[in-house]
C-alpha cells in the first residue's frame, strides 16, 4: 500500500483540483493512525495525568509518559522534556539554563541561518543579562562560514545552531560544530525542527547538549514538541514555569520541585497530542526512512535542476544529507502572486521570509517561494509542479 493512502487529507480537492501539498517544511499532514489515536483518547480515556488513582487517569498518564519513553528510545536520550514545540523548547533553555548559568560578558554564538525562534529568545536574554550575541555568517554557497565560526568561540558558553535550514534545506556540519564548541567549553543547542523529520538522529552520539523539535513537522500533532537534554546539563537547570505537576511539596513559606522532567512541565500537559505523537512514531517505524529520504532528496534535486534550466534562481544545494526543500525566486512573477496562482490549481506552496529574516537579508532578498517535499509526495507531483510553473510563466510571466 502506498504511503499516500494513509493520509486522508490527500484525497481532497482544492479549487476543483486534487491537492498537491508542498508546504511540508511548515507542517506535515497526519496519517489516519494519528487522527484515530487522538480521537480514541478523547473518546475513551480522557483524564488528567499524574494526579488521580482512577482507571482513566492511569490510562492517560501511561499514554502521556509513553511518548517520553518513545522519544528517549527513538533518539537515544536520557532526558526528554515535552514542550509545545521547538519554540517553547528553545525558550525553555533560555530561561531554565540561560538564566541560571549566564552572566555579564558571556557569549552566545548563533548563525545567520537560524529561524526566528532560535534568535529572539537569545536577544531577549542578551538584553536582560548583558550577554553578547555573535552570528556566524552564511556564505555564497549557502553554507556556514566555519572559519568565522571557529573564531567566534572565544568566551562562548553556548552555541545555537539549526540542524537543517528551513529555507535552504542545507544540513549543517553538526559533528564538526559540536566538537569545536566542546573543545572551547561551550554547550550546543541544536534546533532540529527540520532535522528530525528527514534524518534519524542519535542524541547521545551527536554530542549535542540540547535538541529541540516539533511533532507537527514529522506527521505528529501540532501543539507538542520536545527538548532533549544531556543528563549532566539537566542538573544545572532551574525551573522556568511554576505551577502544578512540577512541584514536590508546596507550603506557604516555599516549595520544593520535582527532580525529573516534570520539573519543566508545569500545569496540565498536552495529553492527546502526546498520544498522537506516539502513533506517528509507530507509523514512521514501519518505513525505511533512509530509502524515503534518498527518494525525496532526488525529487528536490530534480525540481531544482528544472528551475535552473528555466533561469529561475534556486537557493540551496540539495546534497545527500540536505532536506527536500526547494526555495526559489521567479524572475518575472512576484512570489505572492505565484503562490496564489499555484493555489488556484490545488498546489500548496509557501512564500515569504519563512521566519528567517537575517538569512534572507544575507542572501539579499526579501522572500522566496518554497516547495518542500515529504514522505507522501511523489515524483509525479513534482513533474506536475514544474508543468504548472511553466504554464503559469507562459500566461503571467
Amino acid at each position, binding site marked *: 500500500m502506498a504511503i499516500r493512502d494513509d493520509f486522508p487529507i490527500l484525497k481532497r480537492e482544492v479549487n476543483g483540483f486534487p491537492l498537491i501539498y508542498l508546504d511540508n517544511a511548515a507542517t506535515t499532514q497526519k496519517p489516519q493512525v494519528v487522527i484515530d489515536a487522538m480521537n480514541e483518547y478523547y473518546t475513551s480515556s480522557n483524564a488528567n495525568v499524574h494526579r488521580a488513582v482512577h482507571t482513566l487517569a492511569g490510562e492517560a498518564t501511561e499514554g502521556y509518559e509513553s511518548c517520553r519513553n518513545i522519544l528517549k528510545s527513538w533518539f537515544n536520550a536520557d532526558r526528554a522534556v515535552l514542550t509545545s514545540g521547538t519554540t517553547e523548547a528553545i525558550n525553555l533553555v533560555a530561561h531554565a539554563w540561560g538564566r541560571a548559568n549566564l552572566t555579564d560578558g558571556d557569549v552566545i554564538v548563533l548563525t545567520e541561518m537560524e529561524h526566528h525562534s532560535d534568535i529572539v529568545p537569545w536577544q531577549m536574554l542578551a538584553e536582560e543579562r548583558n550577554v553578547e550575541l555573535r552570528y556566524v555568517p552564511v556564505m555564497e554557497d549557502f553554507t556556514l562560514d566555519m572559519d568565522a565560526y571557529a573564531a567566534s568561540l572565544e568566551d562562548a558558553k553556548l552555541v545555537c545552531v539549526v540542524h537543517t535550514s528551513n529555507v535552504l534545506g542545507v544540513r549543517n556540519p553538526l559533528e564538526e560544530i559540536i566538537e569545536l564548541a566542546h573543545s572551547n567549553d561551550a554547550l550546543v543547542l541544536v534546533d532540529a525542527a527540520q532535522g528530525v523529520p528527514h534524518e534519524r538522529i542519535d542524541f547521545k552520539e551527536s554530542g549535542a547538549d540540547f535538541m529541540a523539535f516539533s511533532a507537527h513537522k514529522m506527521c505528529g500533532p501540532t501543539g507538542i514538541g520536545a527538548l532533549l537534554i544531556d543528563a549532566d546539563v539537566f542538573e544545572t537547570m532551574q525551573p522556568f514555569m511554576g505551577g502544578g505537576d512540577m512541584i514536590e511539596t508546596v507550603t506557604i513559606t516555599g516549595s520544593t520541585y520535582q527532580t525529573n522532567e516534570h520539573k519543566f512541565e508545569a500545569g496540565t500537559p498536552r495529553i492527546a497530542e502526546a498520544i498522537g505523537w506516539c502513533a506517528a512514531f509507530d507509523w514512521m517505524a514501519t518505513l525505511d526512512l533512509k530509502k524515503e529520504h534518498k527518494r525525496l532528496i532526488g525529487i528536490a534535486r530534480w525540481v531544482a535542476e528544472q528551475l535552473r534550466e528555466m533561469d529561475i534562481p534556486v537557493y540551496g544545494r540539495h546534497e545527500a544529507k540536505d532536506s527536500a526543500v526547494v526555495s526559489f525566486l521567479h524572475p518575472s512573477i512576484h512570489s*505572492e502572486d505565484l503562490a496564489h496562482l499555484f*493555489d488556484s490549481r490545488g498546489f500548496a506552496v509557501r512564500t515569504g521570509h519563512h521566519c528567517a529574516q537575517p538569512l534572507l537579508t544575507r542572501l539579499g532578498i526579501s522572500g522566496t517561494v518554497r516547495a518542500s517535499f515529504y514522505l507522501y509526495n511523489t515524483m509525479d507531483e513534482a513533474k506536475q509542479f514544474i508543468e504548472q510553473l511553466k504554464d503559469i510563466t507562459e500566461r503571467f510571466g
Partner: protein
Amino acid sequence: MTYPAELSELIEEFKDVEDKMERLEMVFDMADEVVPFPAEQWTNQTKVQGCQSEAHVHVQLEDGKVLLLSGADAKLVQGLMGILTLAINGSAPAQALLLSPDFAEEMGILNSLSPSRSNGFRNMFDKVMKDIRQFV
C-alpha cells in the same frame, strides 16, 4: 449593501467566473485602475501593515473629491488597490466612507486569498478609510 454602479457590475462579472485562476487574472487586470503612487514617496506612514509584500497608499482631496494613490510590488495587491480605486476615487469623502469591504468577499477574491492576504486587504481598506476620515 449597495455599491457604486461600476463596482456592482464588476462584482457580477467576477461571480460569473468559475475558475479561480481566471478570477485572479481578472484581479491582476484591475491593477490598470490604480493611480500610481511612486515608490520614492513610500514611507512608514504610507505603508500597509500585515501585507506579505510592500504595499503603500496615500489619500488626498482633489476638488473636494477623494483621490487614492497606491502602489505595491505584488500584482494581486495592485489589483485589489485598483478595485478600491474604482470604488472610491471621485467620490466625496463622506460618500467613500460608506463603502463596505465586503465586496472583496462577494467577488470571491477574499476566500481565494490566504488569511494573511485577507488581513492585508482589510488593513489596506481600513487604512484608506482612516486617511479619508481626516477630510470629513
